[in-house]
């Protein structure tokens, strides 16, 4: 039987703004299924985002939704969570939103280990503004602001999150829609700051310029280059060149920020 997504969607707000072939619709479906699996009440959930194509997602979802300024999703989310820890707070954004303009908020949210689930939609590019390079654009790739090929070094978002102190870090792709749903559910269930980096194709801003072919080809590229985390551990650096690990990359348990604060200051 077909899955009923409509319960979580805002009727009248669809069609969405995403281009045909954009990976974001797949993420939204997996996100809905994962949230449904948690059994959380819609009134308990707060979805925050910044600015970008990815950040338009909360507008389509029937929760308490907060579309903020570019890069600031996690800073707003932190205020919401600290003021009312009963709320389940989910923050999302694109690679530019979360790791360029919002990079400082990102690493500090990781460091605090505040109980927020963060999704970074990594399409290697600034989609909304038309294909400028981002901190995750691969070296030598083309972008409208890198017409000679990108000279910058690339951020590895998952490694950045682990280094900064996030207690649950995972990576997935839009090809892996079903495992993605499980991973998102795991992240939502984790107490502390969890990050899921989701590789998603932007055929309009990245694929076209970098000769990646059709949107379907871009998804196949994800399939071919994703290596399960366990296998990736056993592979050499050369074998992993151009590939990336998927699955749970890091999971530890540390005191959650608001709980630790409350205990420290004697709040109950």
């Amino acid at each position: 039987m077909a899955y009923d997504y409509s319960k979580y969607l805002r009727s009248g707000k669809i069609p969405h703004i995403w281009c045909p072939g954009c990976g974001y619709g797949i993420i939204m479906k997996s996100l809905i299924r994962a949230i449904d699996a948690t059994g959380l009440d819609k009134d308990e959930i707060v979805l925050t985002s910044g600015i970008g194509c990815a950040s338009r997602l909360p507008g389509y979802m029937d929760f308490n939704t907060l579309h903020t300024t570019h890069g600031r999703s996690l800073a707003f989310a932190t205020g919401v969570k600290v003021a009312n820890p009963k709320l389940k707070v989910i923050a999302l954004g694109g690679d530019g939103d979360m790791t360029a303009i919002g990079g400082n908020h990102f690493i500090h949210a990781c460091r605090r280990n505040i109980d927020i689930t963060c999704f970074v939609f990594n399409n290697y590019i600034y989609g909304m503004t038309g294909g400028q390079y981002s901190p995750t654009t691969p070296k030598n790739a083309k972008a409208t602001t890198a017409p000679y090929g990108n000279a910058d070094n690339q951020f590895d978002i998952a490694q950045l999150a682990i280094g900064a102190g996030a207690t649950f870090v995972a990576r997935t792709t839009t090809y892996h829609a079903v495992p993605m749903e499980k991973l998102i559910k795991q992240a939502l269930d984790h107490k502390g700051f969890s990050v899921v980096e989701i590789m998603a194709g932007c055929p309009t801003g990245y694929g076209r310029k970098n000769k990646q072919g059709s949107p379907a080809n871009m998804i196949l590229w994800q399939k071919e280059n994703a290596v399960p985390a366990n296998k990736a551990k056993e592979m050499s650096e050369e074998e992993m060149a151009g590939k990336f690990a998927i699955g749970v990359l890091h999971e530890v348990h540390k005191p959650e920020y608001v709980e630790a604060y409350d205990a420290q200051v004697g709040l109950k």
Partner: protein
Amino acid sequence: MAREIRFLQGNEAVCEGALYAGCRFYAGYPITPSTEIAEGLAASLPKVGGRFIQMEDELAAMAATIGGSIAGKKSLTATSGPGMSLKMENLGYAYLTEIPCVIVNVMRGGPSTGLPTGPGQSDVMQAKWGTHGDHPAIVLTPSTVQEQLNETVRAFNLAEKYRMPVIILTDEIIGHMREAIEIPEPGELEVIDRKRPTCDPKDYKPYKPDADLVPPMADFGSGYRYHITGLNHAEDGFPSNNGKMAQADEIRQENKVMHHYDDIVKVEEFECADADIIVFAYGSSARSAKEAVIKARAEGIKAGLFRPLTLWPFPEKHLEKYVGKAKSFIVPELNLGMMKLEVDRVVKGQAKVVGINKIDSDPITPVEIIDEIRRAK
């Protein structure tokens, strides 16, 4: 019953006022000369069930303050010059989305890192026009430590009542000086909470104003699921590219302040009724101005002090009463002539308007003002 008397610093009095008003969340980033507000609330908020967080920068602090308010808590942040500049992006967000919160700017010299430990009054135009786009502003400017407390309560009340950010513009002198003040008893000062919706959640429109032009605001998590965006939006909160509607909404926001001028604007008019010379002064400069006016009166000069406690909206209705009567206005301020522009605008050439301006990190003294009063006589 006698009220409790305490010998407090101006910044400490802000903390007392915030707690009195029901503030339960503070997000900030330390900067001189505002830091004692953060330190004070870090210590006292947990005792009343509130929380404090030191964010990674002022952008984040402003964002978290707004987030805290959306989650239902009265929220405060405090900063000074460079920090205020950083807050502007998200302050604009709070104006557009009509989120109540209070921002204290303990002014220092500038631009840039400027004179960190000295006083300034050079953010008065920034307080009105600092963020991009048109929006109304409510800005309060206390002159005494007692007013630091009382005006902080008033700032929260206005923020909640009109569903918008309110700025308290104070300066290093008032922030750091100590005076004996009376702590109001609980119930003595009015404390206002935002209007929350009472309608069926499915009918809730977060930007549908009541007759007072203010829409009721639901806390996230209270059963009213809705969307907040920094894009121009329709009454239902969702983005819209309809320019006419955006214009109407921003004019409605402007009107929600201007139509309540009498409730919002507060002024001290001291010896103004028959004055030939009116000193227009605010914040710490108004303290010197008052002394100068008292001395001038003792010399038989008809001087008066016009002291706005609300700087924005500009108290023009109050000031207009003296236009055509007083023959000169003197505007002492710790900048190169910002509020003088507003006084000029209202006086419209019908009297002389003279500025006394300093940006050397020293206060304006009563002597400097009385000299100007004598010259104007």
